[in-house]
Every structure is written in C-alpha cells, then in structure tokens.
C-alpha cells in the first residue's frame, strides 16, 4: 500500500475525509472537556443569585430564577398523577364517594362541594373553583371572609405588611381577589436574605406566644415541621378579639389534642354552624395534621415533615431538598427506606393496613352520625323540647368533632394510628350515647317503632334532601370563573408589572 500522502495526491477526497474526521474528533473531545469542566464546577456555583428581591416579592418565578433546582421541583406539585389506596394528588370528589358527609355538614358550605386537596401549585386555582367560596361579583359577597386567603399565597404576608394583620382579616373574600394571585410558594416559608426557613403567618407565632414559647428559637429541624404547621393545623376565626375581624386563631398550645380542643370550644361557647336537621351547634375540624402528627411515633423520634415529604435529592454534584412536596408513598426509597430496611411493597402495605383498619371504624362512625342527625330531626318533628334534646346535641357535637378531627387530616391514620383509633372509638361511644338518649326521647313522645330514615345514599339524593339547589350554585360559579376571575388576574398582572 502506498503512503497516505501519495494516496491523497491521487485521490484528493481521501484528504478531505481525514480532515473532517480530525475536526469531528477534536470537536467531540472539546465538548467532553467542556462537560467535565462544567460538572466540576456545578457544585461550586450551585447558588449564583441572578436577582435581588424583597421578602414581600410574591412571584415564585422571581425566587425561582435564583433557585432553579428547588423551583423546578416545586412546580412538580402540579402533577396530579399519583394515586394511593385511599388518597390521591387529584381533586377526587369526596362527597361523591362518601355521601354521608353531605348530611354531616348540612347547613355548612362543605356539603356543597368537597374534593381531596391537590398540590400547592393549585392553591389559588382550587379556591377560585370550589363552590364553597360562592360566586361573588360587585353586588354579591362571597360566603367566606378574607381570612380564607391566609394560607393560599405569598401575597398574604405582603398584604398583611401593607395593611396590618387585623385589617387583612376584616374583609370579604372577594375584596382580595385581585391581590392574592400567586399560589403558595417560596416567600411563605423562606427568608429572602438568608433563605433560612421563616414563619410568615401570625397565627402560629401568636399560638407560640400564648404558650410562652419563642418560635424564633426553634431549631432548623423543628422549623422543617413548623413552616408546615403555619397552615396544616386546626384553627378557628375569633370574632371577639378585634371588632369586625375574623381573626385567625389556633387552639394549638392552649389545647392541643382533640378532646382538649373540644373542651376549649365549649368553654368559649364557640360553634361553626347550627346543623339544620338536628339543630346541633356544630364544630368543623380543619386539617389538624400537625397536632395529630405530634402524637405519632415519627414525631416522637424527631422526624420532621420535610424528612418524608421533601427528602433530599441529588442532581450530579448538587444536593438539595426535593421541593416536590408529595406523598412519601410515591418516593419510598428516599423517604421510608432511609431508616426502614424493608421492601417497598412491604412498607406500602404497612401504611395501607393502618389506613384500612382506621377507615373501617371511621366509616362506621360516619354512618352512625348520619343516622343520629336524621333521628334527631325526627325527634324535633315529633315535638321534642330543647330541654329534652340539650344533652343529646352535646353528644352529637362531640362525636362528630372526633370524627371530623380524625378524617380531616388526610394523613392521620398513618401519622398517628393509635390516637386516630382512640378518637374514633370515643366518637362511636358518644354517638351511641346520643342514640340511646334519643330512643328514650322518641319513646317518651309516643313513638316506639324503628325510625324510618330517608334515602340519602348518593351525593345528589343527600344534597336534594337537605334542600340544596346545586345547579344554581354551579352555573353561578361558571359565570364567576369566566367573568370575575379573569378580571382579577388582569388587575393583578398590571399591579405586578409595576414592581
């Protein structure tokens, strides 16, 4: 064979092939070198702030520019694909699946519409969409107060700082529609200067103060739970604290378990609404996730919310907290298996076992409560007196409180299976007490047959029985979503453009 140089002389194309091949090799080598340099430095330059913003910057994307890893993960809370045995990341219609809830919450907005909660990404979207906030416009108010915005957005601390805390609690829900537009995000939990965890909602700070504790002294590990406890707690609106304000208040600290909180509400003569069927002054439990978690074994071992719901994640040389807040069942390897050596299927079935067993009795309690409300209604119709019913209503109030407290925290049956089991069993006892007394009252009124109960076996039947006109509510909501909401968002955009 001839030397290459002679071959090229004869066939110049061979020279070109050699030339281009060399270019390709050097080019790829260059790319490889660049990739190595880039990945060497990614850990060093992981946090390179792009812009400055104040603590009251409500737009998550502005914070996200400085913290792209965390921001991208956080935006994954938009993913609704996850489903477990009983819960899901999507807006499953709870009333459809458990029509008994409609009767239990009759007279209260929850009987209109109640879905399983979606990720933080949907906080604003879903509060617009739910029938519970009504369809306000210029002339009609929302059935809810402005306090209902408190946990929905980083616009809230901004507004509180601009107008004052009590003033924020003193309006109608619709008044801040054009102000509160960014879903829960960065500024709700982080300090803009240091990115340390920060408590931004006054209710938790006040609850700590009432106990004589200083929340600023909490350790980082405690803060990994406390930032969640700003919202995932039982609360009520204190109407006596400041005239005209629905002042958001946590019983937390003064009373921290379900029984104590019920006594606390009894003592201050508080009720959420009067049940139209049984005339009971009812209590509605919000999501006492934090209180219930505190009674569980994971809390006792010092595990924080973030340890399981936001475990660490690595991307090459960068390690960060996974801000995709979600069910640990969707990420067992990084949550449960950090400490527990068992197989994924085993761990998941352990969770399901607890949930199934709790559910068995909470369903029973729910069914008994439905029956009791209807029987109480029957007793009133027979002509029962307030004197006769007083004690019974107190039993119903306490029984339903325990039921609601157990089911309103969606993670309760795993976070605190023993406490949840205890609450439900005491609820069953209370409701049966109510029924024993009711049977006596009904007998005294001359009726000794079994009380015939109406058919409330589906959401539609139950809602019709308590006299709801759902189609009117739904069409008003559609109108509101198509006319009022876009206007709110437009105004907000104009305001934010001036920041």
């Amino acid at each position, binding site marked *: *064979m*001839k*030397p*290459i*140089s002679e071959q090229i002389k004869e066939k110049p194309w061979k020279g070109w092939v050699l030339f281009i091949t*060399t270019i390709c*090799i*050097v080019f790829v*080598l*260059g790319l*490889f*070198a660049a*990739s*190595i*340099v880039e*990945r*060497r430095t990614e*850990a*060093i330059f992981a946090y390179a702030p792009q812009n400055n913003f104040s603590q009251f910057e409500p737009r998550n994307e502005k914070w996200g520019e400085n913290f792209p890893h965390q921001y991208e993960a956080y935006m994954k809370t938009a993913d609704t694909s996850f489903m477990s045995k009983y819960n899901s990341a999507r807006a499953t219609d709870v009333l459809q699946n458990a029509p008994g809830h409609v009767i239990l919450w009759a007279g209260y907005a929850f009987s209109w519409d109640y879905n399983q909660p979606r990720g933080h990404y949907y906080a604003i979207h879903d509060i617009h969409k739910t029938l519970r906030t009504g369809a306000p416009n210029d002339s009609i108010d929302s059935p809810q107060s402005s306090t209902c915005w408190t946990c929905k957005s980083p616009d809230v601390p901004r507004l509180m700082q601009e107008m004052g805390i009590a003033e924020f609690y003193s309006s109608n829900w619709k008044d801040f529609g054009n102000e509160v537009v960014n879903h829960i995000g960065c500024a709700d939990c982080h300090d803009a200067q240091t990115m340390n965890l920060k408590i931004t909602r006054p209710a938790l700070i006040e609850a700590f103060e009432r106990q004589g504790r200083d929340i600023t002294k909490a350790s980082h590990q405690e803060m990994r739970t406390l930032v969640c406890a700003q919202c995932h707690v039982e609360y009520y609106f204190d109407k006596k604290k400041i005239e005209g304000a629905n002042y958001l208040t946590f019983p937390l600290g003064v009373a921290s378990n379900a029984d104590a909180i019920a006594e606390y509400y009894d003592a201050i003569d508080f009720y959420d609404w009067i049940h139209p069927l049984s005339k009971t002054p009812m209590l509605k439990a919000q999501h006492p996730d934090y209180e219930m978690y505190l009674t569980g074994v994971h809390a006792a071992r010092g595990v924080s919310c973030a*340890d399981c719901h936001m*475990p*660490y*994640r*690595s*991307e*090459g*040389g*960068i*390690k960060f907290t996974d801000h995709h807040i979600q069910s640990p069942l969707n990420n067992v*390897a*990084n949550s449960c*298996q*950090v*400490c527990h050596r068992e197989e994924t299927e085993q761990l998941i079935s352990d969770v399901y076992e607890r949930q199934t067993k709790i559910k068995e009795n909470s369903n029973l309690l729910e069914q008994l409560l439905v029956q009791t409300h209807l029987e109480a209604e029957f007793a009133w119709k027979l002509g029962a007196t307030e004197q006769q019913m007083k004690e019974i209503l107190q039993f119903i109030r306490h029984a339903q409180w325990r039921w609601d407290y157990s089911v309103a925290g969606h993670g309760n049956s795993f976070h605190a299976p023993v406490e949840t089991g205890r609450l439900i069993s005491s609820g069953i006892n209370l409701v049966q007490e109510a029924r024993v007394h009711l049977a006596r009252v009904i007998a005294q009124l001359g009726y000794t047959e079994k009380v015939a109960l109406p058919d409330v076996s589906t959401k539609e039947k139950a809602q019709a029985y308590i006299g709801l006109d759902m189609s009117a509510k739904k069409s008003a909501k559609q109108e509101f979503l198509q006319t009022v909401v876009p206007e709110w968002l437009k105004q907000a955009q104009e305001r934010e453009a001036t920041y």
Partner: protein
Amino acid sequence: MKKILAHILPPQSWRVPVIIISGICVGLFLFIAYIANAFSYLSDKPETCINCHIMVPQYATWMHSSHREHATCNDCHVPHDNIFRTYFFKAKDGLRHSSIFTIRGEPQVIQIKEEGHAVVHENCIRCHTELVTDAKLTAVHEDFFTQKTERTCWECHREIPHGTVKSLSSTPYARAPLLESPVPSWLKQTMENEKNSMNTSTKNKKQENHQTP
C-alpha cells in the same frame, strides 16, 4: 513497523503542520485527563471517590467511623487478592461510574451491586481473619468458620462503617472537600498581581485627573 510508519508519515514538507495538529490533539487529551483528575483514580485517596460529589454521604459516614483510621474506600471496595484483579475491578467499576455520571444517569438511591457485595465481604475477612478462624471456638463449634464466612458480616454489624441511616438524608450538613481549582496557584497569583497593578495605575490616573483642575 517501519512499513506502517512509512504508510502514515506525511511527506517532509507537511511535517511541521502535522506535528502541531497532533500536538493539539494530544494536548486536548492531556487537558481532559488533568481536568477530570484522571490521575487521582490511580491512587487510594478516599477524596477521589467524591470527585463528582455523588458519594458524599458515604464519604462523610466513613470519615466519622473507626474504619477511617485503618481502611480507605479501596481497601474494602476493591479486591486485593492479586494485582491484576485489583486493577481490572477498579477500572471496570470506575469506568461504569464515570459513564453513568457523564450521561447523568446516577440513581437517587445508591445501592451496592452483587459483585461489589462479594468483594466487601472478602475484604472484611482479609483484615479480620482472626475473628473467623479462632482455634478455640473452632474446636467447640464444628462449623464455626463456615458460619462466619457464609453469612455476611453486616447481617449483624449493620452500621459498619456507613451508619444506620444510609441515604442522601443521612448527612445533610456533611462538609466534604471540594475539588481544588484546576487553575494552578502561580497563574492565579500572577493574574491577581496584574489586576492589582492595573487597578492602581488607573487609580493613580484618576488622582492625577483630580489634581489637575
């Protein structure tokens, strides 16, 4: 040999550009080797194993264990029965790790593979032979040796040496050494000096400007 050379070598007049071009290629290779810390992989330094930061929790837990005093990563995770197997295993493992890292395919949860599992067990026995070959105990228990070697040591010694909690979450605040800057210190120093002298000269000029009006 000569034939092959004659086949590739360019004619006399092309020599210089060809030397320069091949120099560029080889130089680029050397740069890659340097920037990727390629030579460190021949050493036994544990810091090498966190060149890419992925194994920081493993490094940090080892760093706080008693094994730190006596055994490096390689002592346990690479076989030591003969030198060929040592380097073959090391090269195979290392190349797998580096290719996975390059294509960003690293898993969130790092678990040892079966082969590595066997090697670690070999190495436990290599150093702790006296614990599995106790003459007195062998006299009493016939199957003492087999029992001690057929089951893995960490069936019981679960925390050794990486701790009970094994994951990214185990060492959230670990401080592990970062790679040093690839720019040599003398070059940095020179650049720093240049910058300073330029700054002072511009400052001087400004001062002069101030003085004139």
